[in-house]
């Protein structure tokens, strides 16, 4: 019966590329029906093209891959090491992970990254909140509760990645942000009225003026294809929600993007195109970037956000730097308020991800 069932399986439609094998998926980008092997080929080739056309890397550069153990960064690590070999990019690739110190979540996902280290033969560097800031997220949550903890996590992670990248002495940091993520960010910036971020959020490379530029090779890659690729290739990735924001999935905007994709898959790329094409006058610039007086990290304020938050934690005033607060450090909290004071409920991809 077993053999019969297998033989009985429909042959289905044939792949439009090779015309030989049974199609395994419908590409959201082109609506083509293609088989697994052809999918691997076009998926990898497209990312190669993005890398070449945008000149993301130069030969012999050291590149860190921000690795969370999730689907995007796992596929990115796999594909990038594959392309590096195939097309002789001549890159030194590293995995860079952040250990937030969340028992039952990050320790598990770090195990995934450690397996990736062996599977893909990429050296791994883990930087932890504990060693950088003296606090684990477990400890922070114990102090401040379940509210606002994502603010701490997000601010700390962004800086932790830069610190880790500096320790690895890399020239670039790549992150696994995919087309869905970027489309979502475009929408969120419109909904929030953040014209400065709106003008920057579709750039494939950011922070070129800073110490370590970041780039997003998956900028035009659909989340669906990333997940399909990981599934077909049986890549080892971790997909559990963060225990501290179990329901924080994504808000309205993500839901909207997915609804849109169902009606018109190409809308995701159209949103990115709109984001690139918006006529934004160059006079709307970001505030002058300086350095944090305390830790030296890039900051437009006297102190960087991480230092303000940390100061609050260490002084037992964890509300410092979050929303509208009146802590002892009035001056600092005021300046932070201006940038981050709006308690906005529409949130983007919060946890387990690498912040923009």
């Amino acid at each position, binding site marked *: 019966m077993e053999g019969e069932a297998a033989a009985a399986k429909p042959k289905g439609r044939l792949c439009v590329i090779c015309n030989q094998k049974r199609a395994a998926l419908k590409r959201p980008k082109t609506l083509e029906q293609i088989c697994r092997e052809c999918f691997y080929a076009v998926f990898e080739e497209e990312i190669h093209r993005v890398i070449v056309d945008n000149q993301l890397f130069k030969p012999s550069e050291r590149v860190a891959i921000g690795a969370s153990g999730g689907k995007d960064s796992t596929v990115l690590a796999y594909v990038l090491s594959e392309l590096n070999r195939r097309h002789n990019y001549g890159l030194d690739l590293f995995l860079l992970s952040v250990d937030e110190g969340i028992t039952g979540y990050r320790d598990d996902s770090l195990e995934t990254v450690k397996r990736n280290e062996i599977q893909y033969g990429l050296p791994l560097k883990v930087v932890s909140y504990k060693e950088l800031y003296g606090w684990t997220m477990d400890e922070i949550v114990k102090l401040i509760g379940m509210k606002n903890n994502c603010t701490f996590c997000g601010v700390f992670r962004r800086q932790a990645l830069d610190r880790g990248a500096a320790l690895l002495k890399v020239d670039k940091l790549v992150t696994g942000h995919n087309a869905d993520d970027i489309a979502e960010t475009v929408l969120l910036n*419109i909904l929030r009225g953040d014209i400065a971020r709106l003008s920057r959020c579709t750039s494939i490379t950011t922070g070129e003026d800073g110490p370590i530029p970041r780039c997003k090779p998956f900028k035009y890659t659909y989340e669906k294809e990333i997940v399909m690729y990981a599934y077909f290739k049986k890549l080892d990735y971790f997909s559990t929600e963060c225990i501290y924001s179990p329901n924080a999935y994504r808000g*309205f905007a993500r839901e*909207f993007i997915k609804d849109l994709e169902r*009606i018109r898959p190409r809308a995701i790329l159209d949103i990115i195109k709109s984001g690139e094409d*918006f*006529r934004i006058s160059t006079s709307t610039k970001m505030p002058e970037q300086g350095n944090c007086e305390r830790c030296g990290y890039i900051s437009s304020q006297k102190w960087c956000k991480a230092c303000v938050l940390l100061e609050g934690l260490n002084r037992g005033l964890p509300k410092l730097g979050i929303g509208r607060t009146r802590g002892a450090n009035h001056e600092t909290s005021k300046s932070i308020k201006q940038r981050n004071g709006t308690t906005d409920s529409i949130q983007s991809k919060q946890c387990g991800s690498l912040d923009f």
Partner: protein
Amino acid sequence: MSCNSQNCCQSGCYKDTILDDREEVSLALTNAPNEMPFNSVSAGSGRNHPENSVLCVKCKLNESMASTSAEYNTDSDISRFCGNCFRSNLYGKFRLAVSSNALISPSDNVLVAFSGGTSSRVALQFVHEMQLKALKNFEASRDRSLPVFGVGVVFIDERSSLAVPTLEFDKAIEDMKLIVSNIAPPAKKLHVVPTEDIFPLDSIDGRERFKELVDAVHDDTGREDLVKYLRMLSLQKVAQDYGYSKIVLGTCTSRIACHVLEATVKGQGYSLAADIQYVDARWKIPVILPLRDCLSQELNILCNLDSLKTIDAFKGHHSGINALITSFVKLLQAENPSRESTIFRTAGKLTPFRFNRMPEADDLNSKLATQRRQKKYNLKPNESLPPESFCRICNAPLKLSDVKSCNLENGTLSAEVIRDKCCMSCQFQVLPKDTSVLEQFFSLFPQQMEVQTEYNSSSEERLQTLR
């Protein structure tokens, strides 16, 4: 909450608590988007006087609308005015838009596009009130130097693309005639024009041609958008045929907020800024949006307050992506009543196009206006080149890098060449993919469009012709 004890500070803390509450509520909403626990927010945040007599925040004489009628008891600031102050406030926004952008000048003959809905109903009402005031001033002035602008009304009869029973349709048009005849004096002419009139008179069956054209579009959203583009052509044609100098649309902030997302999702980020300004003079007859700063909620309230009659029979229904966006914005608006305004403001920061200002007029103020504009030119010298080209279908300005260069030969263009002169969005959602069908599609297209797009080759040249 932000402070542990309620009495640590008197004024600020209350606000903080509310803010935190709101945050919690919206977080809950993120988890279960189908539920809308917003009654709690409005109960806590808006008015801190539970008793029913709250005075208008402006005149401080009359009771606010919130206290007189539960109907207006909304979360926004609107209900804190009394009826009179609300009305004059709303009219003030309209008047400010008109005066500060020189939307209507005394020598104008304006055509108000009336769909039967609340927005265009208010537009019609306000234009009428303005005309009435101008008339009074005219009669009072000694020299009677400034003429009073003329007003006409147009309704585009879209029964060829709408599924409304004929009887109901005819009844609605009768109602509409009644509405317009009641908005007098001065009397206003109502033009009821079927969409198919965009085709030249000699074409045999315009309605069939129209249907064939629209049915050739396979995408639901594309079809809806095409009807919208054709509606603009109808308006343009009526305005030209009857000598109107401006077309007034009732487009309000809320509609613009939806349009911002619609355009973004369709990849029209470049041309978006063209559609949402007070003035859109890329057309032969400039289009003006004097209600640009009014929320649909406000317009609805005014219609309610003043018993302005509207007609529901033609109420536009959206499909496809446009419908999805309408419900998305509704959801966002419920979560935060100022979201529409925020979206509108974001898009307002985009750089407009050259044609988003009024072309030179012949009236007395023109000299001053010219100087003002000259100044703007000096500020952005690079803006004066290169000339824009426009989509053959929707007339959206095209991004230079998106336009495939092709040699413009005299005579007829092949369908493929014309396709390359359409925006990406129309190429995807409007134009048929099959080349042979495409040729047929372009042949069905109203001739007017062909002629009119010729002007678009140079915007400077267009401005010349407009004068």
